[in-house]
């Protein structure tokens, strides 16, 4: 700021100067994030969008021809992988919720002084890489391994084979293995938001519900669960969205029959080198997830919660 003003005029203008400067502060704070998103999200998105409507080959080069037919072709050829992705991701999300809710509840209300330790244990798997954890599951579920041995002896595998989740006395390279891997890898993303929203609930509300003739089960149904909805919604989103696009679990723990759309996109990009199809598949997946999430958020009515 330049000091060119005459001293008598300093009554009002300085106030304006300060407020003008203050008004700009939020924008300055936004700038790094916006730049980042522009360079690493918006531009790639536009680039992919244009790739998806190009035609050509690697040798001859690709040209934008507004060839939307690629979308229909991709969908016609790979719809089973789409269905499978949504099915596996949905199953894994439900499993995560069923496993994660009791644990988050326990940490929030019953863990007492062990709370921080248990939270660290929940996050502990992140100290190793995603890939290594998934590879470890490969060993755990391996043919003739202890898990397969026990489940086979208990005839659990007979039941799961009959249901079509496994094949014979194998776990690896079956849908069940992929869903197990997805559930395991995304479980912390479910637990942490659930824990956060459960932990925020005032314990006196439980007492008040009990005081007003609600049994512990009713208290959970009418007070605790509704108040934990923000956690349920963000937990399921944080699990479902990445799980739907995941390909590592399907690649490492599955077989060709358990391919998810993520694997298809990966192979189209890196092996087949059919960039337009790969880009179109990415966009279709994004659109499906976006629509599902919007409908889900509308249905769960979380905007109504405090």
């Amino acid at each position, binding site marked *: 700021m330049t000091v060119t003003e005459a001293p008598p005029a300093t009554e009002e203008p300085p106030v304006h100067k300060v407020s003008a400067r203050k008004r700009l502060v939020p924008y300055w704070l936004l700038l790094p994030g916006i730049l980042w998103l522009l360079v690493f999200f918006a531009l790639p998105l536009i680039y992919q969008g244009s790739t998806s409507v190009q035609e050509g080959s690697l040798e001859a080069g690709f040209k934008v021809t507004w060839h939307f037919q690629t979308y229909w072709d991709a969908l016609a050829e790979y719809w089973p992988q789409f269905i499978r992705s949504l099915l596996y991701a949905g199953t894994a999300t439900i499993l995560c919720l069923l496993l994660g809710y009791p644990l988050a509840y326990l940490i929030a209300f019953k863990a007492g002084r062990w709370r921080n330790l248990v939270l660290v244990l929940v996050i502990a798997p992140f100290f190793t890489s995603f890939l290594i954890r998934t590879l470890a599951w490969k060993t755990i579920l391996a043919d003739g391994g202890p898990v397969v041995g026990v489940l086979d002896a208990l005839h659990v595998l007979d039941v799961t084979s009959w249901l079509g989740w496994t094949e014979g006395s194998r776990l690896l390279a079956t849908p069940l293995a992929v869903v197990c891997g997805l559930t395991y890898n995304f479980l912390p993303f479910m637990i942490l938001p659930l824990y956060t929203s459960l932990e925020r609930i005032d314990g006196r509300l439980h*007492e008040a519900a009990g*005081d*007003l003739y609600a049994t512990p089960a009713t208290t959970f149904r*009418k007070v605790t669960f509704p108040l934990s909805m923000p956690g349920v919604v963000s937990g399921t989103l944080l699990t479902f969205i990445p799980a739907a696009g995941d390909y590592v679990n399907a690649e490492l723990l599955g077989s060709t029959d358990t391919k998810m759309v993520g694997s298809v996109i990966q192979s189209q990009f890196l092996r087949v080198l059919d960039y337009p199809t790969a880009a179109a598949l990415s966009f279709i997946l994004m659109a499906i997830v976006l629509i599902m999430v919007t409908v889900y958020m509308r249905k769960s009515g979380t905007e109504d919660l405090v």
Partner: protein
Amino acid sequence: MTQKTEGGDVRLAGISKTYGSFTAVHPLDLTVPQGSFFALLGASGCGKTTTLRMIAGLEDPSTGTVSLGDTDVTHLPPYKRPVNTVFQSYALFPHLDISENVAFGLRRRGIKSVKKQVDDMLDLVQLGQFAKRKPHQLSGGQQQRVAVARALINHPQVLLLDEPLGALDLKLRRQMQLELKRIQTEVGITFVHVTHDQEEAMTMADQVAVMNGGRVEQLGAPADLYENPKTTFVANFLGTSNLIEAEVASTTSDVVTVTCGGAKLKLPNARCQAQTATGDKLLVGVRPEKVSIAHADDADSIPDGRNRITGRITASSFIGVSTQFIVDSPACADFDVYVQNIERDSRLAPGAEVVLHWNPEHTFGLDADQAIDAGVQSVEDAS
């Protein structure tokens, strides 16, 4: 409300609560008569809230029993007790609107048509137009009334109030005190009210139990507690008392005469809470508003037969309806005197020599084996 609750007295028999080695409530016997407004009064940590929570079933007593009428409810979980609580921070359900908050208890008992009752109850607490709002859209005073409505709609045998006015500002608190008293008279339900505010307890309750250190120090009607405190804690915690360390000079069946700092004071033997053999120590007390103050020059005009103490004014403060003097005397270093501002004597200023005098009937005697300043509220407590 036409419906009267059945039931009876709340009876606590020998209940106590210990947490590890800490005793929150010492074995306690207490009977709250049906239909009364009963206050548990004490400073924070005196065990009053723990006692209330044991009645509600939110805390298991370590020993003893809780009965409502003839029913022993000691081992009933809270949701099976015909008792409702107004919580300190109201604990309204944030995801439910006001009418659903109020209807919560009725719905849990399987009552389907709640609309009429909820509307009536919201009218009683004058919140009819807020039925569809969420709790966070209401002010503190309104939330407080929702909490009362939510508990009262169930027609409990006993309504428990845990410092229900603690979060409100002074003016609103006075207003809500009258409101609660009105509601209690109207519905005739037994109210057990926990508070640390002695004025609140005295204005609202029929019976007050003063608690200290997990024990009931004294139980009685507010005026009785105020006029005849049995311990220094009650004397100091309820209002202000001037306590003087004295020695018994002589005793008859009616009158005890004591000496202190050269003065001779008389008090009725009936108002003595301790042994009064000649030579025993005794704490002699008198309330500040019972004492008259006269300038030393007018000492001759004081009628005979009154207790007298001489001293010097160290401070005076004008409070409007009255003036408060602090007098330094050989018997007591900080003697409080409240004088109504009817005819103000301009000579009564700091530094003036004065004579304090009062009717011996207004004097009470306490056991000298207790701390003289027990229950004196420090500045931060006096909220």
